[in-house]
């Protein structure tokens, strides 16, 4: 079974907001959809889910049109939302009913997930000192933002969906809850689930995702397997930690120092071979090295570079168009 997004695009009048995006998930896993603000990630997600009508293109699951009626889909939207004045239990049962679950099954799943996400006190509040015996479940507006987010994650996973779309799942979470979310996502991802994750937190993406698409102004500027992409860049990030100052030696090699702290020096190489030459120089100079590490660029660096490159190309193309229209 595969999930295929084929040439989907969206136009509002003459303006194209998503321009022929395609990607494929051949097998269950986690796929990242990245981009700057306004790049078209949420619009793409809405088109995939059928919430927004596509101007063109198609989305297929197992070679059949992707229909949320036929396929069990879980969605955690970027803009979180719960009914503020409705009890958590009522809302969750409603959401489960919408997915075709019976009340009995819903209650079982609610019990499981409320314990898993440490929300059972809110779904099944226990009478305490000064509280009545039959205590009503909490309402959404009585929960903190982090707990509300957990409730929404529960809503996304309540029906054990086959396809899960997580739009900025960790935004606004404290470290403890962020870890809890990550553990849940890891657990879910280990099953036969097709997960599409959108996030600005590159560290999170690198933890979970195998493949990705980077969008800029509605277009895909980079696509593919994360490992392959990093490999194609080569290992060009060098971290040096030494008990002596190596700045002069590094500069003498004509290398770019990206960042320097009291502890370490981060150097950007043009290619891997420069690392060997620098090492030889440092050894010759008898520099007491503590750490000499060659790494691939981070996803953050790749993202920023690609976006800048794309913006530059767009600027050039716009200039050419303007010159052309002036000449006419």
């Amino acid at each position: 079974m595969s999930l295929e997004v084929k040439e989907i695009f969206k136009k509002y009048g003459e303006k194209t907001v998503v321009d022929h995006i395609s990607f494929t998930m051949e097998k269950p896993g986690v796929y990242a959809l990245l981009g700057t603000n306004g790049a078209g990630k949420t619009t793409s997600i809405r088109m995939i889910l059928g919430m927004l009508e596509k101007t063109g293109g198609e989305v297929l699951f197992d070679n059949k049109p992707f229909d949320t009626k036929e396929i069990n889909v879980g969605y955690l939207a970027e803009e979180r939302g719960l009914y503020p004045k409705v009890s958590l239990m009522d809302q969750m049962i409603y959401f489960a009913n919408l997915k075709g679950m019976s009340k009995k099954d819903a209650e079982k799943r609610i019990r499981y997930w409320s314990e898993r996400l440490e929300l059972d006190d809110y779904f099944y509040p226990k009478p305490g000192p000064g509280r009545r015996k039959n205590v009503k479940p909490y309402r959404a507006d009585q929960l903190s933002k982090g707990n509300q987010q957990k409730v929404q994650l529960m809503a996304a996973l309540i029906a054990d969906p086959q396809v899960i779309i997580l739009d900025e799942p960790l935004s606004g979470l404290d470290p403890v809850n962020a870890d809890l979310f990550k553990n849940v996502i890891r657990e879910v991802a280990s099953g036969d689930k097709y997960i599409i994750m959108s996030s600005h937190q590159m560290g999170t993406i690198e933890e979970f995702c195998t493949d990705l698409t980077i969008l800029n102004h509605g277009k895909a500027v980079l696509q593919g397997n994360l490992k392959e992409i990093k490999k194609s860049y080569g290992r060009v990030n060098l971290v040096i930690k030494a008990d002596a100052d190596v700045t002069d030696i590094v500069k003498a090699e004509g290398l770019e120092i990206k960042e320097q702290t009291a502890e370490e020096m981060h150097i950007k190489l043009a290619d891997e071979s420069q690392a060997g030459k620098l090492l030889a120089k440092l050894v010759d100079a008898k520099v007491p090295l503590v750490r000499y590490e060659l790494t691939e660029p981070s996803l953050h660096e790749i993202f920023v570079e690609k976006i800048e490159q794309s913006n530059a190309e767009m600027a050039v193309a716009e200039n050419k168009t303007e010159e052309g229209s002036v000449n006419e």
Partner: protein
Amino acid sequence: MNKKEFRGLKQVFIYTFSQYIKTPSYIVTLVLMAIAALAVFPFMAKFGNGGKDGESENSIEKVYVINDSGVELDDEALSSSLDADSIYEGVSFEIFEGDEDETESLKSEITEKGGYDIILSIERDLEMGGFRVEASYDSDGNLSRMNVSSLAEVFADWFYEYKTGSLALNDNVKDMVDGKVNYEIISDIEYLGLLEGEENEAIGQSGFWVVYTAIFVSYMIIAMSSGLISSKIVEEKANRIVEYLMTTVRPMALVTGKILAMMLVTFINCGVIGICAYISSAVSKKLFGKAAGELLINYVDAETLGNISVPMIILAVVIILLGIFIYGIIAGLFGASVSKMEELQQGMRGYSMLILIAFLLSYGALMVMQDKGFNVFVWFTVFCPFTSSMVMPGAMCLGEVSMAGIFACIAIQIVTALVLLWFVSLIYEGVIVATGEPVKFSKMMTMAKQKLMLDAKRRKSHE
């Protein structure tokens, strides 16, 4: 528009309905309405015009007639002024020919006797032409204004016929003298027998209040229901729940489910009030010997009361429910055009304007009914789908509309609702996911046009 567009309708309907009836405000309102409906008839029997000492009858016993009309009247002629099966059968008449002092002492006498008698004075109306009947009664006595007004109306109608009869004219001349000058527009509707009533007769005071009450109650029900629908939709948008819901529920189901839920709530409210009113009438009959009909006759004339039946009430409720549906769709669309609760009033301007205009047209129709009776303008408001839910129930009470007319009105409402549903289905998806500035009506029209063009393009490419 097809069935797929309403996926999730059942769940939205059940959820909206169950959540609404659980709210404390709804429960309290329903209980208060039920208590009011239960208490109304015993209260009227005990404290209304017919129950001042608990055992007196609320009816006119005698009518004193002061005749300055120039037309000769005698006691026999006056006695025949009331039909044998009229509720005023048994009322006695007496020509009173006293002077001013004697008239004053007659009034005192009437008061002393408990106010069961009235004085009708009939004279030439030199200002307006024709004749004028003035009815005097003791307002602190045992008679109601409605009762007296009703009798005066019956008497005036009788005198109108009698005065020309007294001139001993032959039938031909009598018809020419009596004949009013009317005009009418011949249309197909007349041949379907949709319009009843031979002439454009102005409605009486009791008819006025019946129609006024119907317009006001319908307007309040429709406005409140539609307001709730739009605020629920905005709540889902403002709280961003709509994004999650739309993964399983189609946008049209989100709005239609809410509308149907509000219709069911209204239906239940009407049912509860109806049942309580029935119990109230039975209790009043048991305790005070007066059922609903006998009490309402003091306020509503017999003919109107006779038109009110259970099937008529059910059809009136259906028409009001269809009004909720029509206005609910419009309120849902305008409600979805905004993204924040604070913007709801701004976004609902179009809807507010529409319902206000409909209310004013309905009220205008009422004024025309009171002045001229049922003319073209009034019939327009009776059948126009945006005003019929307010005007038609009252018109049905007055017996002015035939069954064919009632079903035609319902058919027009259903067609209007379907057309609105179709239009909304073209654009609702785009409107409900729009964020930022409220979506203006002009933008909605553009979206509809674009959707139609896109659908046409797709159909062509399939072919």
